[in-house]
């Protein structure tokens, strides 16, 4: 590691001198690297845009990997470092095994993690959700849906993703001592059609299932559609995560009891503003824990209309 940086230093100095020769001050750039394409990140992008309006002297961008793989993310980070960006905020796909890559980035630029933390790396701070806490929130909603207990089925893309595991852990913690039994967790490997099939098959197999829980953004709308198609609204309760338009429609019409939403707008905004402050040597905003937890919200019938309008506004004109 050390030897590489010594070798790289003269080359980097030589390169650094080149593009600025013309005299025009280049904007320093900040990048937000996400894990996969999703509406969630479109909302985050709006937060980045807001930060960029407040700090026009920076060039801020969001980068979406072609595939949700750690290898693809590593390639992106390497390219960003080669481009000499001033700061990187990243939602690491495989944080536990990406420490080396993250530390390399942290050595050359400001590094924040967002959405998914990598506590073993040298990241300056994590800005995002505490997914175990979000799972506990969902667990509380599950108890609200089934006060007398019952059978619940969970749906998620893959269980090797940290946020999936942490949410399940939070749910199990919250359900301890309750009469709610988690029958199984069905995964779909991010294939939306399979996500819907899993729900259809569950409804066909368990006539006595009481509660369906969607852990990832696309799971809940597929649950909503399958429950409606099977005519089981009201007989089966639904609790979800995130703010897909169909999820919100389901909350509004009562098929879905509630959904636990994160605040990706804040992820984007606070990460960017935070990196600007960090680059200006203002580090007072970083707590000792190096984690800035952005709380989740519960959207249910009482506040869904207002939230829907807000989302439509954020996602408009993309």
């Amino acid at each position, binding site marked *: 590691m050390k030897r590489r940086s010594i070798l790289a230093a003269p080359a980097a100095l030589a390169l650094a001198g080149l593009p600025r020769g013309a005299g025009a001050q280049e904007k320093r750039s900040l990048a937000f690297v996400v894990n996969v394409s999703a509406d969630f990140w479109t909302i985050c992008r709006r937060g980045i845009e807001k930060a960029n309006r407040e700090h026009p002297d920076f060039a801020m961008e969001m980068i979406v990997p*072609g595939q949700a793989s750690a290898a693809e993310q590593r390639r992106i980070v390497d390219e960003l470092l080669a481009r000499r960006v001033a700061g990187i905020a990243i939602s690491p796909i495989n944080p536990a095994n990406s420490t080396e890559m993250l530390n390399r980035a942290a050595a050359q630029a400001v590094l924040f993690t967002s959405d998914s933390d990598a506590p073993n790396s040298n990241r300056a701070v994590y800005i995002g959700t505490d997914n175990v806490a979000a799972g506990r929130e969902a667990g509380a909603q599950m108890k609200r849906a089934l006060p007398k207990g019952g059978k619940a089925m969970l749906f998620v893309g893959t269980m090797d993703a940290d946020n999936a595991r942490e949410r399940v852990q939070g749910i199990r913690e919250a359900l301890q001592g309750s009469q709610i039994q988690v029958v199984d967790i069905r995964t779909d490997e991010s294939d939306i059609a399979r996500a819907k099939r899993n729900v259809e098959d569950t409804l066909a197999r368990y006539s006595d299932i009481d509660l369906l829980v969607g852990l990832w953004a696309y799971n809940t709308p597929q649950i909503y559609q399958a429950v409606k198609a099977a005519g089981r609204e009201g007989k089966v309760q639904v609790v979800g995560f995130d703010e897909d*338009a169909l999820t919100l429609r389901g909350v509004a019409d009562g098929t879905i009891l509630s959904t636990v939403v994160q605040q990706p707008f804040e992820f984007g905004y606070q990460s960017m503003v935070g990196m600007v402050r960090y680059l200006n040597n203002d580090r007072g905003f970083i707590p000792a824990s190096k984690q800035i937890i952005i709380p989740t919200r519960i959207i249910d019938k009482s506040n869904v209309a207002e939230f829907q309008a807000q989302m439509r506004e954020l996602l408009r004109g993309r």
Partner: protein
Amino acid sequence: MSKKEIGLALLLIVIGGITAALNPLFLSGVNLLNMANLIGLFGIFAIGQGLIIITGGIDLSVGSIFALLGVVLVDLLVNFELAWPLAVLAVLGAGLVLGLLHGLLVTRLKLQPFVVTLCGLLIYRGIARYYTQDSTIGFGYAGAELDTLAWLASGRSLGIPNPFLILLLVAGVMAVVLHRTVFGRHLYAVGRNEEAARHSGINTDGVIMGAYLLGGGLAGLATVLLVFYTSSVSPSSFGSFYELYAIAAAVLGGCSLRGGEGSILGIVLGTVLLQILQNLVNILGIPSSLNFAVMGAVILMGVIADRQLGLRRQRIQMTRSQPAAAE
């Protein structure tokens, strides 16, 4: 029904029987209709894939075509508020154009189908993602004006899912085309030996082009149905790997990747088997993580059994034909 199809049908009955014995809900009306719906969705483009495979080609771009045409369809309907018949026609037309493009590259520039459609897989997925700026688009905020199309693409007639009925129609038409027309005979001839077919006066380029056109058109049709199955399209994952389901169904159904073999009935039965395999994982409560492993294992067993039976049949035919040849 050829021996191959009978063998596949027997395999279906055995697997279905075991599943039903372990959990009778497998045969419940709800489950069968759910499966019929999925068989319809996956069967339509498997037939397109099968036609291309029969010519000795392959189409790896199907999944990416779904993503690209899917985002175009949703965009036309939701953001441009185009009348749905026009939007559907546009998507079907775009499917045909992509098929034509593949056909031209394969026949005129003599590129290998694997390479052409592999590039298609990469290009269409990339365009779909760029077009949507990597965001999921869907019918979430759409109104009731799409109800007719939604019913056509994902509703039920007399209790039967429309995609299944559409598959029956497509399979019927394609069976006639493949098994009862000159074009169909030429498809096999080109697949068995393109050189020989050309020398015997068949317009091989035209025949191959026809197969890719049909494949593209059926991919366009499948796009419309798939989009209404999920109601949303995330460009990075929508339809990912679906080309492999289609290839697996075609191969299970008796298509040889070397070309010149296969039937529509076989491809449909192959699709049915694939869907049953995915359904039984859920119905029997087998961990989701084993889904692909179950699918792969059964396909492998099916192909091995088919190969062994085929060799035995060949030997029997050889011994029978020897005296005949001596006459």
